[in-house]
């Protein structure tokens, strides 16, 4: 806390400039609502003062923020959200439902962070703020439910995730889903079950599981890479995982998929569950250490972003701090890794018109935009066309699409509109969440366009060689 919090109770907050208050409201009735009726920040995971006051409220972040661009409201801007954190830090306001609603509308896409001239670590500030919100049990009802049911009960457990995946696949493939949807039985159920059901991700035909497999390099071996299998990606997008393995093999890598690895913890961290996130980080650090790989590669931008920040996350853990830094240093997004090898260009033509959708956690959090394009441009015959606002969030943002459905939908429509306007037949992405969100958006828009991971496109080009 600061030395002398500026606690004001009413309208009379002082001005620096000696403005004549006589022109104010003549009757001086109190404001609507009040400040200071909630807990302040406390504990070791509170947003740090030095992070907060790096923000000099210049406003250069505004136009990069998807929720500000959509609403043009200062409360829904990065600068505004930090101002609310500062107000809590200074003791001028308490954590309240209203403040939480502004923080929860944030997608944590970190577009603001990438354009901030002062280097404000916004992602960290928001994660720590959410940790405070969670500690005080002030999360929205929706986020609270999801945290308990999914983030804590399922994500850290591969077995439970796979079981859920099997059940969902059964539901989707046996015709039950068709029956349920036809019967409209869900609309009779309480809550938004029908909407949730409609957003249910489509399970892949075949899952991808980490069992300690080692896929040998094709041709001369260049190095051994460890592949993160992740949580939902191997269930929903097993095809992309297998494509990732094949393109790595094709480029001279032994690909190890260590057992005992699990979810990277990104979603838990974003929701403010830092302790569970740390636990999941330690598990992965151990799993990959045992596998003795040269680098850790992930095909999910969101995971890569979190894994590259393990060092920061565990900096106060005497046992893991060093290993976490090491792990973070050796983590690569798969497009970054391939572009840096450099990759073997495919020998066959792939005459596709492709547009690249920049995942937020690749473009903003990892500042990687060129690598996926380099990979795509290495494919003969492929035409790469740029869409407008390619790095403006698509609205997926982890499970944001389940909680902030309206904003998610608006951003999804915006993204689909920008993508289809290019006339591309394939939208390339590099993050499972974005791929699912785009697929669903395209289904709704009935646009005949495919969404593929960059490595699936590269894999298709290698396949065409035969």
């Amino acid at each position, binding site marked *: 806390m*600061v030395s002398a919090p500026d606690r004001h109770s009413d309208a009379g907050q002082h001005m620096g400039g000696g403005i*004549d208050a006589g*022109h104010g*409201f003549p009757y*001086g009735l109190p404001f609507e609502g009040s400040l200071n009726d909630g807990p302040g920040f406390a504990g070791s995971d509170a947003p740090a003062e030095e992070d907060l006051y790096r923000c000099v409220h210049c406003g*250069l972040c505004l136009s990069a923020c998807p929720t500000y661009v959509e609403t043009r409201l200062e409360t829904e801007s990065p600068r505004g959200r930090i101002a609310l954190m500062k107000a809590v830090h200074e003791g*001028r306001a308490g954590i309240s439902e209203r403040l939480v609603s502004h923080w929860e509308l944030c997608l944590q896409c970190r577009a603001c962070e990438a354009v901030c001239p002062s280097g404000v670590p916004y992602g960290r500030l928001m994660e720590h703020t959410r940790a405070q919100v969670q500690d005080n049990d002030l999360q929205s009802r929706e986020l609270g439910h999801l945290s308990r049911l999914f983030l804590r009960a399922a994500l850290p457990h591969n077995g439970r995730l796979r079981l859920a995946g099997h059940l969902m696949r059964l539901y989707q493939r046996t015709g039950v889903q068709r029956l349920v949807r036809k019967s409209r039985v869900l609309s009779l159920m309480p809550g938004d079950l029908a909407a949730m059901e409609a957003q249910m991700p489509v399970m892949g035909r075949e899952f991808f599981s980490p069992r300690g497999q080692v896929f040998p390099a094709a041709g001369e071996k260049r190095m051994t890479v460890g592949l993160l299998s992740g949580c939902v990606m191997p269930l929903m997008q097993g095809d992309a995982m297998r494509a990732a393995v094949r393109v790595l093999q094709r480029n001279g890598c032994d690909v190890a998929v260590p057992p005992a690895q699990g979810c990277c913890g990104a979603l838990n961290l974003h929701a403010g569950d830092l302790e569970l996130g740390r636990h999941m980080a330690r598990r992965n650090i151990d799993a990959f250490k045992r596998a003795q790989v040269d680098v850790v590669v992930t095909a999910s931008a969101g995971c890569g972003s979190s894994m590259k920040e393990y060092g920061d996350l565990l900096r106060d853990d005497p046992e893991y701090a060093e290993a976490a830094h090491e792990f973070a240093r050796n983590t690569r997004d798969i497009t970054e890794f391939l572009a840096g090898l450099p990759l073997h260009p495919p020998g066959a033509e792939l005459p596709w018109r492709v547009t690249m959708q920049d995942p937020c956690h690749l473009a903003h959090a990892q500042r990687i935009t060129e690598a996926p394009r380099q990979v795509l441009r290495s494919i003969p015959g492929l035409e790469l066309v740029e869409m407008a606002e390619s790095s403006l969030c698509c609205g997926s943002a982890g499970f944001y699409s389940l909680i902030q459905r309206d904003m998610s939908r608006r951003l999804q429509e915006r993204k689909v509109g920008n993508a289809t306007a290019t006339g591309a037949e394939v939208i390339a992405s590099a993050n499972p969440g974005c791929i699912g969100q785009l697929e669903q958006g395209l289904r709704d828009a009935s646009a005949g366009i495919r969404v593929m991971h960059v490595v699936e496109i590269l894999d298709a080009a290698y396949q065409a060689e035969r």
Partner: protein
Amino acid sequence: MTDHDLLASIRAVVGDEYVIAHREDLLVYEYDGSVDRSMPRAVVLPADTQQVSRVMALAYDAGVTVVGRGSGTGLSGGAITPPEGLQIAFPRMDRILEVDTVNRTALVEPGVINLDLDNHVRGFGMRYAPDPSSQRACSLGGNIAENAGGPHCLAYGATTNHVIGMEVVLEDGEIVHLGSMAREAAGYDLRGAFVGSEGTFGIATKILVRLLPLPETVRTFLGIFPDIDSACTAVSAVIGHGIVPAALEMIDALSIKAVQNVTDAGYPNDAGAVLLIELEGLNEEVDEVSGEVEAALWDTGAADVRVAEDDAERERLWVGRKTAFGAFGTIAPNYYLVDGVVPRTRLTQMLRKVSEVSERYGITIANVFHAGDGNLHPCMLFDAREPGVMEGAMAAAAELMEECALLGGTLSGEHGIGLEKKEFMPLVYTDADMEAMQRVREAFAPENRLNPGKIFPDGSYWRPSAHPAAYTAGMYV
């Protein structure tokens, strides 16, 4: 009319959801890009001119102060609203209404973002020239209030040179038109008086701006100098050759270090100063002038002269310049900058004063500025948590402003006077001057209900009220 009645009446005009009156929400309308803050009574988000007019008439009848707010990027406290005053913001009035390619004009609402307008008209082969460093966030309405500048205003002039006409709502809600829809207007230039009036004359609700054709060629030079004196001489030499570059910017050694800490802008780490010079025009013209510029740079002691090879390299050079102030965060947690102007020929003298003040107060001062038009931005870097440092920085700032005035310059090149510099106005104006200005204001706003307490000294020396760790001002320039 009671407070409650007034808000109810305003809600009836704009709709409930477009009045922000909860204190927790108002926390984010307390500030702009400057150091000061104050919570407005409510924020109103009107949809069109009629709504603005009706809201202002209601406020006028109730005796309530009104302050307009664009994007809140201003650096002199222009959008800070008095306690219990009403703020009117324009996120819903952000339409580009018309682009006239024949007459090269655009009709826009005040909430349009500067860069959005520029990007939009580039599709028609034109551009909107004023380019404040906040251009990706700041609004046209705010640009007009502050008569905003930017690097490219050296050749093309500040905002006032690009506004042809306006629809304006006065304090009592009356709607008037200033300037004309044609290129020239007869009679007094009320439009000219309005631009830069810092929101005290009225609120512009429609703006007709001038557009320029895109230049055929743009060429960007980086002149690298061993010290700041030789770089200043080079500025005089370039201008002395009768060349008016599109932009002519100076970045000193400390600023180079800060920028290169954050991003590789391509500035050499060991340079004493660099000049960023941009030429625009027809191919032949730019070719010819390029030779003269290069010669002038070499003649005045440049260690090296580089030309941006492509758009990416030019972009990189400009990113360094436009984010320099943010990059100062890597040197000290706080900064405060002075937006003073001196005649170009006094640049060297002024910079010597800056370095003398820096030594005497023991405060690091960096210099990044619009050298071409003598608009300095000496930027004091310090840690406000150290006792007494803040006072020292303010006293140093005061001395620098005094020196600008002594050298025949002025207090502000482009950020406005607002709250921040109002007590310094007597340095450049007599009481009679300021009275004359007030009389002009009275012609527009006789009751002084619009953005009162700004521009003119009233004995309340600027005193920051923000959190001690947040004493920073003036991000970009």
